[in-house]
């Protein structure tokens, strides 16, 4: 009887931990595929972006910005800011995988997403302490999301305009984000950050090239940074 779960068991647990999140991710992947084509991306570019960028909300933003003829520098800045939250996931995962060889670190960094991190954080909070094979759990969760995302975006690209437009599939992503954000709101500072970011996003929604999103996220971060300093 081994003391810790085997690599295969960890991997399978990672796949299973991520599976419920695919319910929200896969409809959104299909919507992304259709949106990309409607904004003038080629099917090849739309599919390649799912592997190269591998970030649902950022890919969605990219398509909207591309369709609006946004300058390249603004696009890269906004995508970078939108994905800056992954630095937090990177910081959380870093000490847990510090002992692994470089190839593992590169692969796990590539597979690091909101959903994978959410599955990992919940597992770490509830499961027995990580054994020597815990990185297989991370790989399982990451690969489950990666596969679901590639399949669903390919389905979206293939089906394209044949997807029924009266299905509100696009709403799956905001709901998934609500499911990820709400449990993160653990104190008043965090609640204030959520409310102010949302409010600024509404007020600045009229700005061109989605710059309102940039303004809202920066305002929220600044407020949190200030609040965390004041709380000390």
């Amino acid at each position, binding site marked *: 009887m081994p003391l810790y779960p085997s690599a295969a068991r960890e991997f399978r647990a990672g796949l299973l931990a991520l599976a419920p999140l695919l319910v929200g991710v896969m409809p959104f992947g299909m919507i992304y595929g259709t949106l990309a084509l409607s904004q003038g991306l080629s099917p090849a570019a739309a599919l*390649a972006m799912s592997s190269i960028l591998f970030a649902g909300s950022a890919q969605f933003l990219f398509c909207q910005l591309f369709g609006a003829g946004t300058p390249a520098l603004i696009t890269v800045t906004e995508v970078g800011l939108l*994905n800056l939250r992954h630095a937090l996931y990177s910081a959380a*995962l870093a000490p847990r995988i510090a002992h692994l060889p470089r190839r593992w670190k590169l692969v796990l960094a590539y597979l690091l997403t909101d959903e994978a991190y959410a599955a990992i954080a919940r597992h770490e909070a509830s499961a027995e302490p990580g054994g020597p094979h815990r990185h297989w759990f991370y790989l399982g969760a990451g690969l489950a999301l990666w596969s679901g995302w590639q399949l669903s975006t390919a389905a979206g690209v293939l089906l394209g305009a044949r997807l029924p437009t009266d299905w509100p599939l696009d709403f799956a992503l905001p*709901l998934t984000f609500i499911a990820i954000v709400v449990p993160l709101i653990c104190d008043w500072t965090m609640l204030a950050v959520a409310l102010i*970011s949302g409010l600024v996003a509404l007020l600045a929604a009229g700005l061109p090239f989605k710059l309102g999103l940039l303004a809202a996220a920066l305002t*929220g971060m600044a407020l949190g940074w200030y609040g965390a300093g004041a709380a000390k």
Partner: protein
Amino acid sequence: MSIWLLILACGVTTFVIRLSFIAAEGKVAFPPGFRRLLPFVPVATLSALVAPELLMPQGTLWLAWDNSRLLAGLMAIVLAATTRSVLWTLVGGFIVLAIASA
């Protein structure tokens, strides 16, 4: 800039962000101010994405009980806070959306 270069630039930027702390662990110390900022980044960016989806589903502010996306979003917030389950949040949100927009 060609679209391929643009996709590559966004992809490299994102990968560098994801790799940042993993690669730097034990080698480079990030400034404490940046570490203090980190916990707020997901909440700030995701809230900024979600708010217009609920309150401006058609591009202008729609703060009323017949806004089905707002109702569905509120239900999702309640479910996320009480169950902490992604699945229940999605299911509840979509059920309310279906009922409210029927």
